């Protein structure tokens, strides 16, 4: 076959092909990426979109667990305070029980009970960023307030939960009445009000009933604190799981579009040699023809 040499067409085509491969390899080494646009590897880019979304979703849940953790810590410590104060109230009430306590002792116990009542009322009206934690969904209203001298629950019975993972939620605002009243006819604040008077007057029947009510309230508070503790433990586990899942998702994402650097550098070197070869080949071939040998 006759071979013609078209330096403009064949030569430039060869140089363009080699320089394109060189530029691509160079970009991959410089950027650490294998894929620049979707057409480089459509399936990998599609996977990358989904993997990137998984990373963002995990980041979202991580933020949710951080926020939930702060609330749960406050709930936990508040319930711990309530438990402590209920124990103190039981101690003060027991001190006033029976015939042995003097009036001065009973007065002091009554005064202490009144203080503990106020503390419990303060605890149950605890806020996080200005939102009440024990009013159920009524986060803007103090759960317990004295209205016309009567302790009144202003929250509702529906706890507020947030999702901290795809299939896991934790309670960040609970029903305060469930803690302070439960199935009793009166909440513990009202009960302590009665105990203050009973302790002062030595009304043993009321004191005994009050002690039982304090006991039940103590159990409910401990139970609620345990539930919060369980949620806290879950959140801690989920946080650890999110960290490991994020690592895994980032690794997948990296595998979708990142380049194998060793491979890229090797290909860049090969492409560089090919590019130089193309330049040299075209330069050499363009100089040679029979005309150069004719004299």
């Amino acid at each position, binding site marked *: 076959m006759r071979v013609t040499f078209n330096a403009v067409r064949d030569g430039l085509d060869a140089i363009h092909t080699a320089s394109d491969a060189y530029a691509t390899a160079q970009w991959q080494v410089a950027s650490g990426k294998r894929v620049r646009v979707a057409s480089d590897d459509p399936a990998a880019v599609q996977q990358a979109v989904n993997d*990137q979304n998984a990373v963002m979703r995990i980041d979202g849940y991580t933020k*949710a667990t951080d*926020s939930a953790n702060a609330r749960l810590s406050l709930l936990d410590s508040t319930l711990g305070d309530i438990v402590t104060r209920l124990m103190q109230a039981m101690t003060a009430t027991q001190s006033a029980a029976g015939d042995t306590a003097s009036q001065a002792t009973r007065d002091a116990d009554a005064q202490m009970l009144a203080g503990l009542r106020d503390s419990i009322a303060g605890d149950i009206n605890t806020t996080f960023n200005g939102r009440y934690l024990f009013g159920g969904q*009524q986060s803007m209203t103090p759960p317990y307030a004295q209205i016309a001298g009567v302790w009144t629950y202003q929250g509702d019975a529906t706890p507020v939960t947030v*999702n901290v993972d795809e299939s896991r939620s934790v309670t960040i605002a609970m029903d305060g009445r469930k803690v302070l009243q439960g199935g009793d006819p009166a909440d513990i604040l009202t009960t302590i009000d009665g105990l203050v008077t009973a302790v002062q007057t030595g009304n043993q029947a009321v004191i005994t009933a009050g002690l039982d009510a304090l006991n039940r309230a103590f159990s409910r508070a401990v139970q609620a604190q345990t539930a919060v503790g369980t949620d806290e433990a879950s959140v801690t586990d989920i946080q650890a799981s999110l960290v490991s899942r994020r690592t895994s998702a980032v690794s997948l994402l990296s595998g979708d*579009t990142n380049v194998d650097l060793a491979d890229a550098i090797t290909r860049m070197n090969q492409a560089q040699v090919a590019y130089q070869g193309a330049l040299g080949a075209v330069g050499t071939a363009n100089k040679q023809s029979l005309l150069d040998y004719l004299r």
Partner: protein
Amino acid sequence: MANLFGSLSTAARSLDAQQYGLDVTGKNIANVNTDGYTRRKVSLTEIASRNGASDGGVEISGAPAQRDAFLEARLRAEGPGVSLGGTIANALSVVQTSLGDTGKSIDGDLAAFFDAFRVLSQDPTSSVSRDTVVSQGVKLAKTFNDMTTRLYASETAADTQIKGSITQINALTTQIASLNAAISGANGSSAESLKDQQAIAVRSLSHLVSVGVMQRSDGGVDITVGDGRALVVGGNFYQLGAAPTPPAGMTAVMLNGIDITGEISGGQMGGAIQVRDVFIPKYQTQLDQLANSVVTQVNAVHSTGFDMNGLNGANFFTPLGGVPGSAQNIAVDPAMAANSNLLAASLSGAVGDNQIAKAIAALADAPAVGPAGSTFTQAWSQIVFQVGSDTQNALASQQSHQDVLSAVQQLRDSVSGVSLDDEATALLMFQRGYQANAKFFATVNDVIDLLMNMVRA
């Protein structure tokens, strides 16, 4: 029997022939880099002797161009494929660039939007969280709007390319018709030059649109387009026209008053038509479906809730008329955009209830789009894949046709291309031929001189 004057005449004719050979070789060398030039090969014929006498010598029978009709046809046939793939790949490369980087486009905005609802669920009464949800909704809608604008810009660019192709095609068909007329009345080397120009024009035309080419007996070509519609018949040509079509005023390709847009295939124009009428509408439909699903699903949940004022939730997004145009028209309800207290996060009406916020946040992972039940992000990733895959296919098709075209071009060059080695050989050959004939002429002349001197003596 030969005589000396006959020999002189033979030598003179041969000198002419060798000179002609040198002239043709010079033309070939001059056109070594001329696109479309077909090398000429000198054809010399021995002049038959009369009455058995060998005094004929040589005569020039011409310098025909070395054409291979089959290879020329193959070159024309591959042109539309190369241009089609190239045009589609170029246009879709712009589209895929406008899709944005992973995590920084609609996928990122979708994630941020639903994440804002997740954050809101932690404190439904927070004005900061509410404002964030609204602003993320506005941003998401804007991104959809921008994406549609970019797709429309690509569509318009393809339409402009179609109009440009029409102008170029008309210029080429005019030129081919004119060449046809010239070729039918020309002969010899001028006809070959005209045929070279004709081949270049037809090849250029085939890069613009897939055409049928029929060789005429007078050397001209007839050209058809689409379903065998005549563009050039001999010296006559028929101009393509551009007519705007409703609703967007995109260009229809007209020929003799008939819309032949649907018949156009191959070439730059065929590629631009596919980009404008097939690819971009396909992506736009997918984008509209995604936007429509976002609006429908979010509104469906949002409207069952209660806002901060305890009133029934309105629509978060302005309701859409239907799927078409959804990505262009998606917008956060103006009242909502102005007052985030209208955002409904509560199912019960209690201000601290977050169930609606949680339900909307959960939509991010819900099967929400299309019959296959893709998540929003999956639906977006399918659009990205589709654009990438279509671009890749177009590039592969272009490369495949280009490879064939290069191979055919080499074959064509092996027949029609100028080889400097060949021309150097021919140069040497005709130079030597000329020198030998000149020597022969001088020798015969000397002999005649000798004879004449003898006569004078």
